[in-house]
């Protein structure tokens, strides 16, 4: 019996050396170490052995099992490794072939810039206030200190509707007094985004519609110094920490004092280039202290309250930021343009 066991052992070892695939190893295991394998069967034949030899035989069976199991494990790891290597070698790809691309969408550049502006002003406590595109003469002009025949009305080529008191807003400042009337007498910090319209020729530089973001802060102690501080903070966050601002006197009927804010050119670092027309400065927004007449229309007593307002064009900012040289791209919705965002 013990001889049979030894020859089985020997034969099993030889066969194991010959098994060189996962399948062959599985077959080998079934034949030798499986539940119905030779060695298992041998251990069940214990009864056929002299009682005195049983301990020895039993020990030997276990030794053989363990030895074969050990050899099998080693052999399996080896075969598995080889097979994996072969499979890896077989499956090598041409990694330069193009990938399967999902369809990618994109936000319009105006939306992207407007969100940047919302975010920055939102951090400073400015809420978004929206008002309508089609407005009255009062909203667009009179409440902003531009009574009929005011010369500043000529600065904006207005689209009038067939109803003479109704027009397309030329600036989102048209919502200023509405916001004041709604929030009065609370202090105010709002930005007013929206589409504006001007009766101009459509060219690379001018459009009949464009977005504007107006800003308005009203309170008891708001100063021109606050305006400078707030807008400079905004400019640095939008264009970069190293940007400088320049405020120069200007004119808007609804602010006094009024200013234009220029930002040092981010392309040439204010050295002078084509983008800034060799001035080192980019004109970014108009601003000023809210005119007392406008405060009064909004229900705020100019002797107690003061405020500042500012307005900027997201398309102009997008053009500067992305180096877009033709404003007509914005509403053409040409995918060759949009897909770049």
């Amino acid at each position, binding site marked *: 019996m013990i001889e049979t066991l030894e020859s089985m052992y020997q034969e099993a070892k030889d066969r194991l050396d010959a098994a060189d695939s996962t399948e062959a190893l599985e077959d080998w295991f079934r034949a030798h170490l499986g539940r119905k394998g030779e060695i298992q069967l041998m251990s069940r034949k214990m009864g056929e052995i002299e009682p005195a030899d049983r301990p020895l035989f039993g020990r030997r069976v276990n030794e053989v099992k363990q030895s074969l199991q050990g050899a099998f494990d080693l052999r399996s790891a080896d075969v598995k490794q080889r097979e994996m290597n072969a499979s890896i070698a077989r499956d090598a790809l041409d990694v330069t072939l193009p990938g399967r691309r999902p369809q990618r969408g994109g*936000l319009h550049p105006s939306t992207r810039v407007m969100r940047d502006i919302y975010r920055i002003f939102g951090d400073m406590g400015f809420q978004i*206030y929206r008002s309508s595109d089609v407005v009255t003469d009062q909203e667009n002009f009179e409440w902003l200190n531009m009574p009929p025949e005011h010369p*500043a009305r000529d600065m904006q080529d207005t689209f009038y509707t067939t109803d003479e008191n109704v027009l397309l807003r030329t600036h989102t400042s048209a919502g200023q007094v509405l916001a004041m009337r709604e929030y009065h007498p609370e202090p105010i910090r709002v930005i007013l985004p929206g589409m504006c319209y001007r009766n101009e020729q459509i060219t690379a530089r001018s459009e009949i519609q464009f977005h504007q973001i107006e800003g308005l802060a009203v309170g008891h102690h708001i*100063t*021109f110094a606050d305006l400078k501080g707030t807008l400079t*903070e905004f400019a640095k966050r939008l264009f970069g920490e190293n940007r400088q601002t320049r405020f120069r*006197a*200007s004119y808007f009927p609804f602010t*006094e004092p009024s200013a234009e804010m220029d930002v040092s050119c981010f392309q040439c670092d204010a050295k002078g280039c084509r983008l800034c027309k060799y001035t080192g400065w980019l004109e970014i927004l108009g601003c000023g202290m809210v005119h007392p007449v406008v405060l009064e229309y909004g229900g705020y007593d100019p002797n107690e309250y003061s405020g500042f307002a500012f307005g900027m064009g997201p398309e102009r900012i997008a053009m500067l930021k992305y180096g877009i040289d033709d404003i007509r791209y914005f509403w053409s919705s040409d995918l060759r343009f*949009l897909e770049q965002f």
Partner: protein
Amino acid sequence: MRVPISWLKEYVDVDLSPTELDSLLTNAGMEGVGLEIIGLEGADLVWDRELVLLAQVLKVDRHPEADKLVLASVDYGADEPKTVVTGAPNLFQYLDQGDLSDRRLFSPMVLEGATYLDPYKDLKPRKLKGKPLRGIYNDAMLCSPVELGLGEDHDGILLIQEDEHRAYRAGTPLQDVLGDAVLDIDVIPNIARCASIVGIAREVAALTGAELRMPSLDVQMDGEPIAGRVEIHTEHPELNPRFVAMVIEGVEQKPSPFWMQHRLRLAGQRPINVVVDISNYVLLELGQPNHTFDYDFLRARADQYAPDGPIRLITRLAHEGETLTTLDGVEHELRTNNILVTDPEGNLSVGGIMGGHDSEIRPETTNVLLEAAAWNFINIRRTQRQLAMHTEAGFRFSRGVHPAQAERGARRVAELLRVLAGGTVAEGIVDYRPLEIEPVVVELEVSYVRRLSGLTDLDGAQVADLLRRLEFEVEGENAGDGETLRVTAPDHRIDIEGPHDLVEEVCRIYGYHRIPMTVLADSLPPQRGNPSLEAEENVKDILVELGLHEAITYRLTTPEAEARLSGEPDESPYVRLANPSTQDRAVMRHSLLASVLEVAAGNSRFRRRLALFEVGNIFPLAEGKDRPEELAKLAMVVAGPRDHAHWQNDGESMMDFFDLKGVVECLAEGLQTEWVFEPTEQAGFRPGKTARISLADGTAVGVLGELHPLTVERYEFRVEKDQPVLAAELDLDLILGRLDATPSVDPVPVYPAIREDLALVVDAGLSAGQVRDALREAGGPLLVKVELFDVYQGEHVEAGKKSLAYHLTFQSRSKTLKDKDVEKQRRRILAQLEKTVGATLR
């Protein structure tokens, strides 16, 4: 407005470089929009100080070998004169006239080695080299303006005639004579006072602390008194509050002196003759437009209406149908709001804008009636626009010129006509002032200046000082607490209304750049957010994730353009422009989808795959309302290949109804809501491939479908034959308004799910939606997911029937389901579906 710095320096000392001056003025509200440097450092052509000099012409002789050349002998400051060979046509008049030194005639000269602009080589810079010209060696050149970069004139050399007002010295570097810089300043409406050289000089003086030197307004009047010779009257004092007239007789018409011509040219005006030039010069110098009439012409007309009486000038509004030919020869049909200068015989000029043709100065005119008036700026502005007349005078009067300026302008013109044109000024001035303008006095609290500017340390004395620099009269800074100042605006300003205007002046002269920057310290308003905008932005984000590009289109369109969508014009009222800039942008849109289809069709010319959306407003106008509702919509258009072409996929599989429906379903999922799709018919969409989208409660919120082939045609989509173009339009206000503000989240299941497949045979006419609803109903809470994975009709399925195959997912929240639980459920579903929709197991 062009401001030559040499001219500016006549009224104020300037120590700044042209660039520094440009930025000083820009920061103070006079924006420089151009800076031209002439001859000096920084110019395109810099005149060498040693080699480009002023030369005096001493003698002009014939060239022995050439008829077209002459030999000019010039003094250029050296010990010996130099002979220059030149072909300048304007020197031939001096040939054979012997010694010219008494004529005091000068010309710029370039010596060998200096650079000039070569008019024969596209004005390229070129170094002068000595060489013989027809046998005579020449190493210098007398220059035309163009060769020096001084304009376009190349008709002859620049000849400068000295006169009693300007002396020159031979050999002076040309830089010191004609070197200059010209600032171009954008005169915005509130700085009308700066539309003159003196106006700018006054600002420079205030900003730098220098002194302003006003030109003298003295006039030597020796002529026959004007009294009784000219009378003025206006019918509209509010439109013409002042009219100043003077008479200058015996004027000699000739070219104006060089210095005046040169200044006019630098300022962008063409010199004509001394009378016109003086009129223009004073307009530019003081900002007071003025007009010169032919006195004898007016007198001859007066002989018709009052042989023994004075010339009577009347300003009045134009009559209905009245016409006037202006001095540019254009006949204008006048409106009844246009103010005119007339006499009893008829009209003479359009007040404040342009003179008439008949009464203008003629070559033979010797006697001049001078007008300097004040006009209402609103009226002038309107007339200018109506008659499309844009003149230097109109530019200023339409922005406002203070009536106090009228006399100053008249005096200056009269004296210059006397001095430069040999005229005699009639004794006296006719100063007609039907409306007195009160000076503007403002009570200014210094605390208000501090409160608005943020300059917390400013005191009354400083404020007073800053305002005085601009010629405001200030009282009260030493009285009482010195906190309320009484400020009188100077009489060249028409823009001061109240204390806020003075705050701007204080800040401007103090310097905007010196005002500190502070953080808003005022109390923070309630932070409310803007839920509707935030929801719209969320919709955009979801659609971008789903592979669509955001479009923004024109909100202006035409009813005809929109009719392409349905094929029928929309009869409901539009917001219509009274003055559209182009006929194709004339009304505010009624359909967002129509706008997006327009740009999608445009894109189809060069893109096969289209996937666009827009979130935007439409503007329907209710009958009888003056303003539209502004409703937020979402429109989507997709067409073309579903996938990018790939080496394992030819990318030729075209999107259809279900691609866009999938997008809409995902949008609903993203918004954490559910929508119902039902077949519908909608104009412009293809019947049978169109669905109505509604909320769970049945409220319709939009439409989704394949466009009707005729719609595709009307938009001129460039797509393949029978290729579907899919579109959807949703009512965002309604959808976003009904969203659950705080949707709940289900816990992640603890017990495993079991998936079963089930194929049902139903009547072909039954919709998948009906079967799905029946399945859900029958499946109860254990059936957590129903996925349709196959729809089949044909072999092995009875005619008139179809097979629908589903993956059904069962899951319990309280236990691990066993096979027998699922089996029970499955049998129940089958039994119930047989009853509800007549389904059998396939």
